């Protein structure tokens, strides 16, 4: 679903296919899925963002408008991915939204400590979930104005 030039609007890091399908379904309703890249684990997410490994041919200057990041991921967990992105000068301005099942307070605190831009608990109730996905897409893709990458 990536754009022809290789750049995307949303990088979605999600290992749960159901959650991915539900999110994409909602975003599609509002025509926000044109350029979305889905990766399955933290390792792949890091490779994508830092243009290494499987994504070595990517240009690091082409970064998504927002990264939707789950906390619980195989290989490298979401908090580690967040940390690496926020520590690197080249990537720290990319908005990162934690979109997670975890209601644990320590995850919330740790995420903000690492510089997350938003923390959203995936509601079980689908109506709420839909609402979250919709406002999320609207806000980060249409309303938010990110600084030009350094």
């Amino acid at each position, binding site marked *: 679903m990536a754009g022809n030039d290789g750049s995307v609007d949303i990088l979605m890091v999600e290992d*749960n296919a159901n959650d991915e399908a539900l999110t994409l*379904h909602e975003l599609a309703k509002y025509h926000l899925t044109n350029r979305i890249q889905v990766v399955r684990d933290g390792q792949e997410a890091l490779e994508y963002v830092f243009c290494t490994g499987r994504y070595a041919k990517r240009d690091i200057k082409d970064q998504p408008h927002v990264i939707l990041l789950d906390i619980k991921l195989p290989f490298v967990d979401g908090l580690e991915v967040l940390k690496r992105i926020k520590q690197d000068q080249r990537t720290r301005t990319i908005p990162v939204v934690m979109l997670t099942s975890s209601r644990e307070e320590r995850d919330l605190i740790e995420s903000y400590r690492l510089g997350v831009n938003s923390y959203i608990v995936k509601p079980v*109730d689908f109506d709420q979930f839909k609402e979250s996905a919709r406002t999320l897409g609207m806000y980060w893709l249409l309303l938010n104005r990110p600084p030009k990458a350094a």
Partner: protein
Amino acid sequence: MSEAGFITVSQYATTAAFAVIAALTVRDWLVTRDESRMYLALAIGSLAAVSVLGQVGKLLGPSFVAASAYVTITVFLVSGLALLLFRHAVIPLKPRTLRLVVGIVIATGMLEIGVQAIFGRTAPKPIQLIAAAAFVLVWSGCVGEPSVRLWFAARRRTVVQRARMRALSLGYLAIVALLLVAVVTSSLAAQPAIQIGFALATIAIVPLLYAGFVPPTWLRRTWRQSEEDKFQQATHDILLFASDQLALARRSLDWAIRLTGADAGYFLARPGTILATQGMTAEDAQALLAPVAGAGGRTVVPLGGTPPRSAMIARLHVNDAAIVLVGGPFTPVFGSDEEAWLQQYAAMVSTGLERVRLVEALAQSNGQLEDKVREVTERTQQLEAANRELEAFSYTISHDLRAPLRAVSGFASILFEEYADAMPAEARGYLKRVKDSGDHMGHLVDDLLAFSRLGRQAARTQRVSVRGIVDRALQELSPALDGRQVEVVIGELPDAECDAALVEQIFVNLLSNAFKYSRRREHARVEVGVLEATAAEGPTYFVRDNGAGFDMEYAGKLFGVFQRMHRSEDFEGTGVGLAIVHRIVERHGGRIWAEAKVDAGATFYFTLKGAQQWRATTAA
């Protein structure tokens, strides 16, 4: 007084002094029954007898002197031999040497007697002079050698023993001096001035004999004195700073030996248990246990043996402990003064021993305390580990259990909303059930997590306004009322010492129950208030409604997790709310109970204080 008269008086005085010393040594022997003392008594007694015979001879004239000459010589001989044997008792000679010396002494004595018998007391012949000279020289050797020997052997001894040995040495020397005086006096009898000088010398020598062989109490004290000054300093060390029983035993034993001039000793911790020895092996001390135990009330026990020894016992007042001192040849005397000193010393050591025991007991109980602390620390660590595990568990539930639920209710929703037209009505009904069940389970998981989080949450107790808490709870619940008309009556609510956030949760849960179960009432009424406070539990808070109530028969299940008193068709819910309330109340150390009647409302009472303080319970 004429010169002759003075000489006579001084000679009488000398004889009398000898008799007195002889009596003293005999008494000393009778008291101690000590072999060496026996020889000493014999030696001094013989010398006194010679002196007495001399005086008697002067009174009764030449015929008595002639008759008693052999007796005098024999007795004199005995004195020399006795002194030699005394020396042997304190510093043993080799058996061969002893036999040789005794032989020589007897031989020269016989020679003198023989010469006297053959030639009588006529004009001196060379043979008489030779025999007399041999006799006197051998006798002087017997007496002079110990003098020198004792003097030098005294080096490297403790102060008291050294003093005792030097005194003995001087005593022997004094006897030699006496003999010389006697010989010179008899040969230079013509000159009264010289006779007077020697008479005076004799009288002066007698006290030396006395001090040397039978040291009186005052002299023994003087010997102790220099040690005792040092001892005073050491007492503080022994009594106040000895760290354990062994150190105390060693030091107190050392000082007892030094001050009494004993040879050796041991410290008995309790009957049969030797804690420390000095100057003797543990086996030797072991061998002495029986005679010492059989001493009864006596403090000085003769031990026999060669040279003969005696033991002095100082009984301590703790656990039948005792210090036992073994006297040696140079132990001055275990007299009443030493005994008195030792008993006083024993009282002091007892005090020190008592102190050390207390210190040791304290150290032991400190050790036990440390063990306990370590145990508690370990237990805490185990609990912390269990807590972490539990946290990981609920973390997993939080994430993994919710994800599939989201999928169930999410996809059901999509079907329901976007493909409803394609489904028959029955299928739509089933689908609705799928979605509702998914949502319900989601709430169950959320509530359960909230409940388990309670267990590991840190306490933040402070004085807060309960009225403020209730107001916030009502505000939080107002959207759920959905415009319903409920009469809420709030009574006087005193402030409380509690965790505001948790207590707010209590009121949110109890009030939301009250609203929920009274919703079928035309006129719903909810009341919040307190009963009279008690000192132990503080005020009792209550939340009352006029709703559906419940059957008190099932009140026991009220606060269990997932326990419900109503069918979910009638009233929705997860059955966790009251369990949460119960846990919060419990963690404050309070208690909670309810009164209800079916269709007549329910009242929940709780306290926030009780016998127990805030407990850090772990999540169940």
